[in-house]
């Protein structure tokens, strides 16, 4: 049975199903059993699986990552949840020095099946330390896998795959996606790690994006259509290992590439994708590759400035038209009222 459910519910289903299927799956993190249940993603788990499977933890991010790593060596499959990406920075030592290298540095004798869920914040004045999209920092590290789904179906299937994977997986969830809806089978299914997906077929250019930016790209399709632009849209879904094949195949067809990055432009995902395309098929490109992404500054709290940090349909339209030499009519660039720039849509009432 397929039902239309929220992204957050899809995450919850993935956790629930994984815990049901394997008694070694344990859930931990500050607040996983608190009244808000990590934005409802861990709802009902403690009630169903008990206090020996779902653990509220001390506010000790590096420590708990080590505890989870240690438990994973003895057969457990821990899932850590952080309510914001930034808290994981306190545990970079355990993630990068230990978990990512564990299997390699012992010559393949013991691996670390560990999932770390990181939630990217945005809007309502989140400010510099509650809004960072740091996928590329983790994706830089051999030994880690990095996942970043854009819709409920992929979120569920990829989280199940991540929990069943024998390696440390960093699983990004954009807070503004949590309330988005999608059709999701109730049953167990997997979406395989390492495969991007062509979510719109087209021939004029290839647009590559991930996470909430994929959502923004899809929102832009109508206006692009008005300009008779038919893009091929690729949702990365997995950042590392990067599905180069799907990207190259599409670029070979469209001969143009735009990357809409969920994070900062410099040294990020867009840099990696454009480098890959340049190395493998720059000779067939009909125009310079282009990218849009988050402004190269910390993201300020005030909505008056934060609104200028994020690309949206306007920036996507501008970048696309520039690449295809089309003129944009000013009336198609919609300027949102200020108080609509810091919330995902009118239905979204927080918590942030």
């Amino acid at each position: 049975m397929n039902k239309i459910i929220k992204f957050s519910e899809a995450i919850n289903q993935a956790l629930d199903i994984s815990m049901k299927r394997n008694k070694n799956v344990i859930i931990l993190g500050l607040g996983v059993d608190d009244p808000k249940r990590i934005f409802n993603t861990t709802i009902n788990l403690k009630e169903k699986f008990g206090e020996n499977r779902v653990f509220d933890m001390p506010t000790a991010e590096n420590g708990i990552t080590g505890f989870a790593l240690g438990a994973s060596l003895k057969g457990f499959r821990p899932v850590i949840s952080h309510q914001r990406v930034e808290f994981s920075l306190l545990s970079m030592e355990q993630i990068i020095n230990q978990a990512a290298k564990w299997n390699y540095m012992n010559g393949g004798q013991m691996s670390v099946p560990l999932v770390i869920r990181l939630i990217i914040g945005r809007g309502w004045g989140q400010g510099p330390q509650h809004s960072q999209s740091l996928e590329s920092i983790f994706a830089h590290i051999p030994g880690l896998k990095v996942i970043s789904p854009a819709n409920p179906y992929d979120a569920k299937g990829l989280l199940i795959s991540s929990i069943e994977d024998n390696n440390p997986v960093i699983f990004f969830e954009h807070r503004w996606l949590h309330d988005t809806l999608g059709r999701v089978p109730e049953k167990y299914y997997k979406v395989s790690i390492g495969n991007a997906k062509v979510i719109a077929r087209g021939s004029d250019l290839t647009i590559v994006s991930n996470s909430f930016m994929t959502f923004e790209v899809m929102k832009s399709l109508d206006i692009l259509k008005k300009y008779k632009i038919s893009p091929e849209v690729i949702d990365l879904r997995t950042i590392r290992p990067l599905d180069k094949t799907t990207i190259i195949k599409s670029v070979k067809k469209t001969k143009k590439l735009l990357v809409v990055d969920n994070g900062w432009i410099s040294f990020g995902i867009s840099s990696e994708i454009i480098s890959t395309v340049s190395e493998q098929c720059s000779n067939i490109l009909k125009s310079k590759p282009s990218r849009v992404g988050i402004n190269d500054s910390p993201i300020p709290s005030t909505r008056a400035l934060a609104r200028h940090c994020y690309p949206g349909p306007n920036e996507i339209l501008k970048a696309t038209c520039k690449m295809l030499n089309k003129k944009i009519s000013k009336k198609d660039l919609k300027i949102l009222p200020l108080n609509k720039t810091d919330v995902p849509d009118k239905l979204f009432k927080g918590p942030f």
Partner: protein
Amino acid sequence: MNNLINLYKEILRIRSIENKISYEYPKGEMRCPVHLSTGQEATPVGICKNLKNTDLIVSAHRSHAHYLAKGGNLKKMISELYGKITGCAKGKGGSMHLIDIKAGIIAAVPIVGSTIPIGTGLAWANKLKKNNKIVVIFFGDAATEEGVFQESLDFASLHKLKILFVCENNFYSVYSSLNPRQSKKRDIIKLSKSLGINSYRIDGNDVIKVFNNSKKIIKNIRQNKGPALVLLDTYRWLEHCGPNNDDNLNYRSKKEIKYWLKKCPLLKIEKILINKGLLTENLITKFKKEIDKKIQDAFTFARRSPFPKLNELNRDIYSK
């Protein structure tokens, strides 16, 4: 009686292995940083003699004595130092990543303090799996300055995990003495007790004291009386990293060095055993001969072993 002789023999064995590494190292074939345990053998020997094979240990950068005392394979260790495929980590870890799962040696890492939470996690898993295994976490005085030390003791206490935290205080972090690192008012035992951990200070160079005290402490842990910490004062004889003595750099006073050399853990038990009539010159020679033979075999094995082939480079980055 047998126990005492075994303690002696084990210290002698570890001392001889470290001496051999120290002797061979300048030839330039063991090309990885080594942090030798010379002078610090009593702690691991006294503690590990109270452990079962199924108990687990984790360690840090100065891990040779821990690995050996817990029963780690000597040939694989030496091969690892030589960077050979026959090493305990196929040459991918080096001296700072010794591992022997069969012997219960789960990990050693050089980032100070980092195995403290990992060891805590192993003990947490043991508790969730309801087994009676103990985890011993070896670390140094500097590791108690790291945040994860407190984070892990807190969690161990909260969940009443079966862990023995072993702090070997050799008074130095590389060249830095305790003075610039820790307040004079700071007391590791008090710190640890305040987190609900049973805590004890023991002479770390007296293997009989370490053995007898840790025997009781480990028994209590096994009987679920809560995690414990032992603080053992000891001294490293050689440089922080490498095969040599670097006391010409004058970072340690001559008086201090003299005091600790006199407290040599090997001579201490040797004297006791001779006085008791349990040990003779002949017996010592016999032990040394047996030990040297095994060491020689291990070095020959390591030298003759092949390096890993190129196809190992990208293997094991991910587990299947």
